[in-house]
Each structure stands twice: as structure tokens, then as C-alpha cells.
């Protein structure tokens, strides 16, 4: 199984470039098994929304 560190790398990369089908499947499998990474994933999405909010409200 993919390590947690690797899973976080792919969670991050997903904001910048599409993952391959295999990457998506192995990340998806990891997130189903690992509640810590699933939580991390939600929080990185929250961070992304925060950044969007920051860009909209300024200047």
C-alpha cells in the first residue's frame, strides 16, 4: 500500500495537474483505508478554498 507521505504528495499534486488513472485508484484506495490521510485531504481542500477566498477579497 502507498505510504501516507506519498499519498499527501498526490493529494497536493491533484491541485496542480490531473493524476493518471492508476494514481487516482491507488490514492482512492489509500484514503478509504487511512482516516488520517482522509482528514488531511479534506483540510487541504479547505486550504485551497481559503486561498481562493483570499484572492477574491483582496485587490
Amino acid at each position, binding site marked *: 500500500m502507498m505510504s501516507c507521505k506519498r499519498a499527501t504528495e498526490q493529494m497536493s499534486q491533484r491541485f*496542480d495537474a490531473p493524476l493518471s488513472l492508476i494514481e487516482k485508484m491507488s490514492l482512492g484506495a489509500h484514503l478509504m483505508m487511512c482516516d488520517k490521510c482522509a482528514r488531511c485531504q479534506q483540510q487541504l481542500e479547505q486550504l*485551497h478554498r481559503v486561498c481562493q477566498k483570499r484572492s477574491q477579497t483582496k485587490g
Partner: protein
Amino acid sequence: MNAAVIDIEEHFETVRPRLLAFARLQLEDEALAEDKVQDTLLAAYESIERFNGQSKFETWLFAILKNKLIDEIRRRSREFTTDFDADQVAEVDEMFDERAHWVSGQQPQKWVQPESSYLHEQFWQVFDLCVFHLPKGTARVFTLRELLGIETDEICDSLGLSQQNVWTMLHRARLKIRGCLERGWYGREEIEL
């Protein structure tokens, strides 16, 4: 005016909108952002002999501006009373053990009221601190990507970095900011509205 002065003015006008956009993002205050960009121009005039090579002029101006913004945000953060210390946020290598699994003290914790954080002025102060606390290059790449919405290809080209390099920096930035926001804001027991 000598040729060098005319030259720097011309270059500065080209870069000015981007500097201003960057300063506005980091400071709440439009007039203050203008001031900081103006200070940057003055500082650039005064130390023009330290600048060599036209291709990196923009990078050089951004570095000057960024130092001015850091000073400003530090000044504000001293006014902002909290026991939160961004220095204590773990490095990415400290978040995972030798098997690349989460270290127990570094596991993501439940976040309190994530959706209402935007409403709090202090939340944005914590956010700015977290971003400015990243290493210089990492903060720049993160800001370009997430706050200015520049595609990674363009970041690679303009900064001369490989795609893998940029992805690695963004990964580090996101995990560190996640940890920093958790420590400085979302991990708090309760937030008074």
C-alpha cells in the same frame, strides 16, 4: 537623468502591476500596498549598483518588496497577541516516520468551524503569518500558484524550476500551512464569534 535611471523606471512600470497585486494580497490596506511598492522603487534606486543582469530584474524587485511586506507583517504580528508561534510548526520530514507514515503528534486533528474562519480578521493574520513563515522560494511558488492562480508550467518557466521541483515545493508548502493553520487557528477548542 542618466540612462540607468530611465532604464530602471521603464522596467519598474512593467513589473509594477504585479508587485501591487502581490502587495494587495498580503496587506488589507490599498494605500499601504501602494506605499510598500513605492518604497520598493526607492530602495531599488538606492541599491541599483547591487543589481546585475536584466533577466532577473523582476525577481530582484519582488525580493525587495517581499522584505518590506515581511517587516510590515511582523510589525502587525507583534500587535496581534496570541500564544501561537509559527516557529513551532514541524517540517515536512518531521511529520512522517521512517516508514513514511504520520508521526503520532503530527497527525491531522479535527478542525473547529472551518467554514466560518473567513469571517475573522485574526484568521487572515494567522494565514499570512503561516505563508510568510515558509522558506522564501517556497512561499513565492505557493503564492504564485494558489493566490495568483498561475499555472505550474508558467511558474517553472519564469523561475527556471523543473515541474517536479515545483510540485515538491507546493507539497511542502501545503502541508506546512495545514499544520500552521491547525496550530494557530483551526485546532483551537472554541472560537468566540
